[in-house]
């Protein structure tokens, strides 16, 4: 029995050491910057997560976990602008060059996040949010009275509860999912990524969802007030709404295009795909 418990203890120690060894080389840094109103915060992190949330004070708190000594953090604080860059040293790769950031900012901060791998996350802000990533998963939630601009190559983009600002998304292959997104302008341009919209197309805005081969599915309530035009050059289109006809020079070809109005037609909705399917669903 004693031998077994000794052996068990040795296993525990070995496992614990393994855990520690995996953490060796990781360091944690915390940076604080005092800022004024509507500061500009920019974080450029090639590899690793960046998450931005609002803090209580007028300061920016950056907590970073560096995965090895092959990466360091360059920081710059000029006036109301804070720039953080993960600087890769010689020999760094995706694993050793990884830094994970958690950032607290004043809610009115304008935030720019850039990463190859991400993921990138921002929530509960009312300053402009700009995100750029290659394969980074982009997630923005609860942003109002501000612009949201996202560019990705293949990373999926998820926007939830975005109101009263301009939303512009360009994604080559990443799927784009918009839930409760409304404002004066909502524009999504995708190549092969699917576009999913679930909201009310509200605020008398302009909604423009365009793809090359990606399918477009838009779901709106029966009380939506929209002037809609949809067309797919080579794919099919489907519509659950009873549209009032409108005077238009737009060519309506059954099965590949439809146009009309619902309710008072307050918002303009344009759904265009080259060869993807388009479906306007009623919730």
């Amino acid at each position, binding site marked *: 029995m004693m031998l077994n418990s000794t052996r068990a203890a040795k296993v525990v120690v070995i496992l614990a050491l393994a855990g520690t060894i995996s953490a060796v080389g990781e360091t944690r840094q915390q940076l604080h910057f005092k800022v004024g109103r509507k500061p500009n915060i920019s974080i450029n992190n090639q590899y690793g997560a960046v998450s931005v949330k609002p803090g209580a004070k007028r300061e920016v708190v950056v907590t970073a976990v560096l995965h090895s000594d092959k990466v360091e953090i360059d920081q710059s604080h000029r006036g109301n602008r804070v720039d953080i860059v993960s600087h890769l040293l010689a020999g760094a790769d995706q694993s050793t060059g990884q830094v994970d950031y958690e950032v607290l900012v004043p809610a009115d901060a304008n935030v720019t996040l850039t990463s190859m791998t991400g993921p990138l996350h921002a929530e509960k802000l009312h300053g402009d949010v700009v995100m750029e990533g290659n394969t980074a998963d982009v997630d923005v939630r609860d942003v109002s009275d501000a612009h949201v601009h996202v560019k990705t*190559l293949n990373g999926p983009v998820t926007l939830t509860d975005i109101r009263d600002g301009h939303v512009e998304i360009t994604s080559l292959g990443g799927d784009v999912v918009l839930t409760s997104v409304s404002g004066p302008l909502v524009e999504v341009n995708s190549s092969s990524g699917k576009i999913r919209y679930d909201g009310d197309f509200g605020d008398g805005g302009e909604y423009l969802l365009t793809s090359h081969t990606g399918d477009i599915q838009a779901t709106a309530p029966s009380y939506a007030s929209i002037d809609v035009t949809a067309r797919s050059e080579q794919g099919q289109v489907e519509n659950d709404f009873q549209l009032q006809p409108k005077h238009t020079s737009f060519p309506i070809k059954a099965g590949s295009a439809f146009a009309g109005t619902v309710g008072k037609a307050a918002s303009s909705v344009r759904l265009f795909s080259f060869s993807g399917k388009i479906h306007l669903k009623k919730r």
Partner: protein
Amino acid sequence: MTCEEFERVLPENEGGHTIEQKSHLNSCSPCSDLVADLNAISEQARFLRDTDTDEPNPRVWNSIRIALRQEGLIREPESAPFLVHSQPRRRRLVWLIPAGALILLMFGVVQYKRAPVQLAAQKPVLSSATSEIADASSLDDQQLLEVVSKHAPAMRASYAANLRDVNSYIRDAEESVKIDPNDEQAQKYLMDAYEQKSIVYEMAMDRSLP
């Protein structure tokens, strides 16, 4: 003169006050304080111009430069340093890599901005121009992939796939414009396709180069 009457005419009195208004000011401290405060605000506002120290992000100039090149408004010196503020390591590559994409973009922008009538007239030219540009584009895509392979080899396959997708988009969009040069949506597809290509190049340059 009452305070209400004075406040009503105050917006007009940039040059000074009438005798009646001056007399009211001398006897009414709230109105006198109001005028003093508004004057102080106006005077201090002039000094806000002295705080013109904020600078736009360097990307602003990069975007301007790309647009000017696309529109054929600038010609760059062949061997002289490219940009005052460019990173030296990129100098050799800047011309080479985006040149093809920019030619395509310029083509797309020019086509998009032309009136439908002009576009129809350009139809016969389109096919020969397209094939020349397609050749240039393919060469530049190869060069871009070589750069990516050198600096971020793990990303090469991903960029190759993105370039295939976006080139396919451009081809389909060009075909649509060829069929109906007056089709505004087809023109928009072409613009969107070119924009996506420029994003691939931009990201490859930004991410691949250390």
